[in-house]
């Protein structure tokens, strides 16, 4: 931006328009500046202003660029910027072209500001110990390894150095990005605001960064108070939200007086009304209701019912208890979980639980309370239509539009991570069943009461789900291989996995990213020894895990298929392949039928309670159908019906292909 020092004639004109300067020699203006567009401006320190001939609008009214009724201290103001009616001052900022700043109390940056970068959050354990530093480039994965991998001193130390270095790179004068609009706000102190962001009516913003981009502008709305925070691209925080030490990820929505402290929220989370404390909210953590407190826990793909609450404080050594809710959990209205607790993936928690639950190997379970006793029904959520719907909706509701999607997400509900847990769960249930006398009505499992009769039932559900997954994956690969080669032996030779990992039975969920534990252990070693020494290196490692997921998954399927059926897939016979598709079809049809039955219950007699008040049965039916539709018209049910047909078609197609191939 070319600019020149103001001349005496210019100073005279500016002075006549109410402008002052501590030192006019420190004021430089673009030669194309329209001097009439400076009114009552106090220039303090070194100030540079670009051309100002254009106009900008907020709410439809075109307003001229320029600076009006404002004190500007040590700032560089880009081309075609409008600054008007600033309560005290804008100080120490670079303001990019086409920015609009109007009716704001102050925008001030200190010389040593890092704009929220490097702030340490006490997540998961409110008492501390899982300190996680936030930076502009934070991802669910880089936060996870900071918070959850504290067992290796060298790793922790080096990781902290990497993060701190990245945090310091963000120090300097404040920055307000191009096409940013900041209107009707209170004090803004040490806050960077990215390109195309829209900040309107915020009450106070302090020590933070609003990352934003043209593709997905970030928005902060009315009455928001935020301190020590970072917002990622496409986040929207409005309507009285209160944030203190918070990271808000891409496409997160937050508002309606939601308050959060020491908390992380990653892609597509939603927080309204309730409260979060020391929360590690992985992707798709959703809490919409009043009286809901999520505290001292790690969640992802989670839905909180109203009044959901956890307890992290036993009035002994302080609030030091932590909770792990693996991906896909739901908690019903007014559910309560005593921490420490570890809930298995895709489980549903109903009622109040005063026992320490530890059931990671029983995923897809219902955990319910009756007469003060916590009970588990293993595997019951496998055939809930809700689980199916969730699995389908998450990828479709990925609202991130920024060019770089920071959080790496594997959406699969059935994956080596959940299937391996089901294998462990199945084996544990069978062992318990064999060792439990028929005289006993219940056994205790992970602090929960488990009906003895459900030991075999749960194991059966898990076996069905394992069979469906393994045979589905195997048959899909066989079908692909047959497309590539007409010769059977050549085709099945393609099924040899290209991944060469040693411990494929151990998987982990790095907050949305599923990967073999071996890969995470390798990363840990690399960071600990210094060979992964920069933040970019770290991101590349996680990207590599993400890119290798399908290959790793196939190695898992290959090896687990052998464990389950004693068949090596690269030596499978046609008869065995036929048996595999039959096994898949049997399990798939069985699950499908149960899910369909579950969905039809949504249209059964209980669902009709309260419809057609004080009217005839016929009117009740009509009222229900008008509001809820019927199983014949419901899109989810009809989709399920269609899927049932597809299962049969796939079976027939595969069988035909198998019998006609060479």
């Amino acid at each position: 931006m070319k600019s020149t020092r103001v001349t005496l004639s210019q100073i005279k004109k500016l002075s006549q328009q109410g402008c002052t300067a501590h030192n006019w020699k420190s004021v430089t203006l673009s030669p194309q500046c329209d001097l009439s567009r400076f009114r009552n401006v106090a220039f303090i320190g070194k100030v540079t202003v670009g051309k100002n001939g254009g106009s900008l609008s907020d709410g439809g009214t075109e307003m001229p660029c320029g600076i009006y009724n404002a004190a500007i201290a040590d700032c560089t103001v880009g081309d075609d910027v409008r600054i008007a009616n600033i309560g005290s001052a804008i100080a120490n900022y670079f303001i990019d072209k086409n920015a609009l700043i109007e009716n704001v109390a102050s925008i001030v940056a200190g010389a040593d500001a890092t704009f929220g970068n490097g702030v340490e959050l006490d997540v998961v354990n409110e008492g501390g110990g899982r300190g996680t530093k936030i930076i502009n480039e934070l991802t669910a994965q880089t936060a996870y390894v900071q918070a959850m991998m504290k067992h290796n001193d060298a790793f922790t130390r080096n990781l902290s150095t990497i993060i701190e270095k990245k945090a310091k790179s963000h120090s300097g004068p404040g920055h307000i990005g191009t096409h940013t609009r900041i209107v009707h706000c209170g004090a803004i102190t040490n806050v960077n605001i990215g390109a195309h962001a829209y900040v309107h009516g915020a009450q106070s913003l302090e020590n933070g960064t609003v990352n934003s981009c043209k593709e997905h502008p970030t928005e902060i709305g009315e009455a928001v108070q935020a301190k020590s925070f970072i917002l990622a691209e496409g986040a929207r925080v409005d309507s009285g939200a209160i944030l203190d030490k918070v990271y808000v990820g891409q496409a997160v929505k937050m508002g309606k007086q939601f308050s959060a402290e020491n908390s992380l929220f990653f892609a597509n989370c939603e927080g309204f009304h309730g409260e979060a404390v020391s929360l590690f909210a992985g992707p798709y953590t959703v809490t919409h209701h009043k009286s809901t407190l999520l505290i001292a826990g790690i969640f992802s793909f989670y839905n909180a019912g109203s009044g959901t609450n956890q307890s992290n404080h036993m009035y002994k050594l302080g609030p030091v208890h932590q909770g792990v809710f693996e991906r896909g959990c739901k908690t019903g209205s007014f559910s309560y979980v005593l921490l420490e607790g570890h809930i298995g993936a895709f489980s549903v928690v109903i009622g109040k639980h005063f026992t320490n639950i530890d059931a990671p190997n029983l995923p897809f379970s219902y955990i319910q309370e009756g007469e003060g006793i916590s009970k588990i029904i293993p595997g019951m959520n496998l055939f809930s239509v809700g689980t199916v719907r969730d699995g389908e909706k998450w990828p479709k509701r990925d609202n991130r539009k920024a060019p770089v999607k920071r959080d790496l997400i594997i959406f699969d509900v059935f994956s080596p991570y959940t299937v391996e847990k089901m294998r462990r769960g199945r084996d544990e249930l069978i062992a318990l069943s064999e060792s439990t006398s028929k005289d006993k009505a219940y056994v205790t499992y992970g602090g929960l009461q488990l009906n003895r009769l459900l030991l075999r039932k749960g194991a059966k559900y898990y076996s069905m789900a394992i069979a469906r997954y393994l045979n589905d994956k195997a048959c899909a690969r066989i079908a692909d291989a047959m497309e590539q080669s007409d010769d059977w032996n050549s085709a099945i030779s393609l099924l040899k996995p290209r991944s060469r990992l040693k411990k494929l039975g151990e998987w982990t969920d790095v907050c949305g990213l599923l990967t073999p534990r071996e890969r995470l252990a390798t990363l840990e070693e690399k960071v600990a020894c210094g060979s992964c020494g920069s933040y970019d290196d770290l991101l590349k490692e996680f990207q590599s895990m993400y890119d290798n997921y399908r290959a790793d998954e196939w190695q898992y399927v290959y090896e687990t298929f052998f464990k389950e059926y004693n068949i090596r897939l690269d030596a499978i016979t046609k008869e065995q392949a036929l048996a595999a598709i039959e096994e898949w079809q049997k399990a798939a049809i069985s699950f499908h039928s149960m899910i369909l039955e579950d969905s039809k219950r949504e249209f059964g007699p209980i669902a009709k309670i309260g419809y057609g008040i004080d009217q005839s049965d016929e009117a009740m039916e009509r009222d229900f159908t008008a509001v809820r539709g019927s199983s014949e018209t419901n899109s989810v049910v009809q989709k399920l019906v269609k899927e049932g047909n597809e299962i049969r078609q796939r079976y027939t197609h595969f069988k035909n292909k198998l019998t006609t191939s060479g």
Partner: protein
Amino acid sequence: MTRREIAQQVVKITARELNMNAADIKETDNFAMELGADSLKSIELVAAFEEEFEVSVIEEEALKVQSVGSAIDFFDKLLNKQ
């Protein structure tokens, strides 16, 4: 087993699992609507029937059973087919 014997067992197990008086259970009772068996309790009931009759049922077929009478018919058909 005769249908009558099966019916006695079904009612006895239903009463035990739902903590009810067997005399209050009728064949026309719907498990969910009249007896208050939610879907969780239904699974426990099916597991109890399986153990009592020493059979393994096809889950999706068992879930279609809505009333005490249809449960009796279901196990009558299953046991007497075997």
